[in-house]
C-alpha cells in the first residue's frame, strides 16, 4: 500500500485516537487532584503518589498481579514454544484438531473460560478433599481436607489462557524457517535436541519474545478470568479496582495506574527506537550485500 491517506481518513484517525486516549488523560489528570473528587478539579498535589506506597491493599494486589503475570508469562513462553515445536513436527491430520482445541481459550468468551475453570477447581478440590479424608481415616494421616481457590488456581488459569498466544506467535516463525538448517545441523553431528536448541530456537527467537510480551500483556490486563479463579484469598489489582468501583475509587488507584502506564510508555519508546535503529543497520548491511552481489 503506497498511496497517501486521504484527509478524511486522517481526521477520522486523529478523532479515534482522541476518543481512545480521552479517558486515560482524565485518569492521569485526576491523579494530581488535591481533593478526592473525580470530576471537580481543586488543585495540584502529589500526595496520592506518596500515600500509594503506604496502602497495603494496593501494594499487595499489585505484587499479586506482577507475580502472576511474570510467572505465567515465563511458564507459558517455555511451554508454548515447546508445544509449537511439537505441533509443527506432527502430521497435519493430528495437528489440525489439536490447534483447534488450542484456539478455544482465545476465541471463547472470558467469562466462560473463567466460569468453567472455576467449576473444574471446585470439583477437583471436592474430589481431592474426599481423597485426603480417606487417607486420613485409613492411614491416620493428618492431611488438610478443605482446599480453596487462591494464587495457585489463578496461576493455572493465567498459564492456560497465555499459552495459545505464545503458540500463535511462534508457529508462523517455525513455518518461515528454512528446514534445511535443521538437517544441515544434524548432518554436521548435532543431536536432534541440540539442533533444536542451537538452530531452531535462535531462529524463532523474535516470535518467542513477541509471544512472551503478548502473554504478559494479556495477564496484566485480565480481570474476568482472574475474578472467577482467584478465590477470596488472593486479589489482583484489577480485582481490587472492581471492588472499589462498587463504592468509591481512591485517586491512589489513578496514581498507580499512571505510574504503570508511564513505565510501559517509556519501555515501548525505548524498544521502538532500538528496533528502528536495528532495522536501519539491517537495511545498510543489505545494501552492502547487494553491492557485493553486483
Amino acid at each position, binding site marked *: *500500500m*503506497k498511496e497517501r*491517506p486521504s484527509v478524511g*481518513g486522517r481526521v*477520522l*484517525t486523529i478523532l*479515534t485516537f482522541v*476518543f*481512545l486516549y*480521552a*479517558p486515560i488523560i*482524565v*485518569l492521569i489528570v*485526576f491523579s494530581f487532584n488535591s481533593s478526592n473528587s*473525580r*470530576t471537580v478539579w481543586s488543585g495540584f498535589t502529589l500526595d496520592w503518589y506518596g500515600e500509594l506506597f503506604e496502602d497495603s491493599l494496593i501494594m499487595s494486589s499489585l505484587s499479586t498481579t506482577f507475580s502472576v503475570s511474570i510467572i505465567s508469562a515465563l511458564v507459558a513462553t517455555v*511451554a*508454548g514454544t*515447546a*508445544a509449537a*515445536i*511439537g*505441533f*509443527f*513436527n*506432527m502430521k497435519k491430520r493430528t495437528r489440525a484438531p*489439536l490447534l483447534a*482445541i*488450542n484456539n*478455544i481459550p482465545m476465541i*471463547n*468468551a*472470558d*467469562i*466462560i473460560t473463567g*466460569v*468453567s*475453570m472455576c*467449576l*473444574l477447581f471446585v470439583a477437583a478440590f471436592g474430589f481431592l478433599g474426599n481423597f485426603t479424608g480417606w487417607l486420613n481415616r485409613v492411614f491416620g494421616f493428618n492431611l488438610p481436607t478443605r482446599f480453596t481457590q487462591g494464587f495457585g488456581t489463578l496461576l*493455572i488459569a493465567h498459564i*492456560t489462557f497465555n499459552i495459545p498466544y505464545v503458540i500463535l506467535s511462534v508457529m508462523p516463525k517455525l513455518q518461515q524457517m528454512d528446514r534445511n538448517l535443521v538437517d544441515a545441523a544434524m548432518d554436521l553431528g548435532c543431536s*536432534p535436541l541440540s539442533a533444536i536448541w542451537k538452530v531452531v530456537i535462535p531462529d524463532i527467537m523474535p516470535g518467542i519474545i513477541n509471544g512472551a510480551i503478548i502473554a504478559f*500483556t494479556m495477564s496484566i*490486563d485480565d*480481570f*474476568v478470568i482472574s*475474578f472467577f479463579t482467584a478465590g477470596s484469598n488472593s486479589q489482583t489489582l*484489577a480485582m481490587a*479496582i*472492581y471492588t472499589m468501583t462498587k463504592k468509591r475509587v481512591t485517586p491512589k488507584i*489513578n496514581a498507580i*495506574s499512571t505510574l*504503570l*502506564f508511564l513505565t*510501559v510508555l517509556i519501555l*515501548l519508546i525505548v524498544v*521502538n527506537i532500538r*528496533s*528502528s535503529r536495528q532495522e536501519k543497520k539491517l537495511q545498510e548491511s543489505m545494501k552492502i550485500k547487494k553491492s557485493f552481489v553486483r
Partner: protein
Amino acid sequence: MKAKAFAYPYIFWMALFVVAPILIIVVYAFTSSTGSLTLDNFTSMGGSYLTVFGRSFLLAFIATAICLLIGYPVAHALAKEKSRLQGMIVMIIMLPMWMNFLLRTYSWMSILENTGLLNRFFAAIGLFDLINAISGFINNTFGTHLSTDLEYFEMINTQGAVVLGMVYNYLPFMILPIYSVILKIDSSYLEAARDLGAPPRTVFRKVVFPLSLSGVLSGITMVFVPAVSTFVISDLLGGAKIMLLGNLIQMQFLGGTYNPHLGSAIALVMMIVVIICMTIMNKFGAEEEQAVMF
C-alpha cells in the same frame, strides 16, 4: 524426529484445563443440584431471560457495527502512512490496553455522569441555557409545554453508555487485524488494477476490500464475543438497570442467586449461539474470498 513429543505435556494440560472445564459446563447444564439429569435449567430460561438474551445480542451487534464503521477507515488510513510510522502506530493502538480496562471504563463514568465532565463542559459553554431558551421561545410562540429547566443530559446508566463502553474497549481489536491485513496487501495488485483502468473506488471495492475480508472477520469475532459476554461494562456504565448475559452468568456463580447449574446452561446457550453466528459468518466470508480468487 521425536520433536513432536515436545507437545505431549501441553496436550495433557489442554485436556485437563481446556477440554475438561467445558465438559463440566455441559454436565452442570444438564443436571440439577441433586445430581439428577434434567432439562429444567433450559426450560426455566423463558421470559425475562429471553429479554436479556435479546438485549445482549442487540447491543453487542450495534457495538460491533460501530467498531467496523470506525475501525475499517482508520485501519485503511493507518496502513497508508509512511513505513517509518508503522511501528509506532501499532504501539499507539495497543497502549490504552495497558491502562487497566476497568479503570478506563470507570473513567467514562466521570465523563458521562449527570455532574460529570461532559455535562459540566456543556453547561460551561452555555448549551443548556441555549436549549432552555429555545424551548422557552417555542413555548411562548406555539403554546407548547417543553421543559425549560434542562440541567444535564442523562448519559450514564443508559444503553447508549453501555454501547459506548463496548466500542471504546474493543475498537482496538477491530482496527489491529484489519490494519495488519491491509498492510500485507501486495501493492502490485493495486497497480495492476489501476493500470487496467479501475477508478480508485473500484480498486477498493474489487481488490482492497475483498483481500482485507479475513481481517474484518477476525475483527468482528474479537469485538462481538467479548461484547456479548461482558458484565463489567454493563455494571459500570449501565448501572443496575441494564442487565446483560454476562451479568446473568456472573450472578449465578458469585452473586446473590447462587445456581451454577442455571449459570452453566446460560453459558452453554450463549456459547452455542455465538458459535453458530461465527460459523455462518465464516462460511459467508470463505465463499467471498473464493469468489475473488476466480
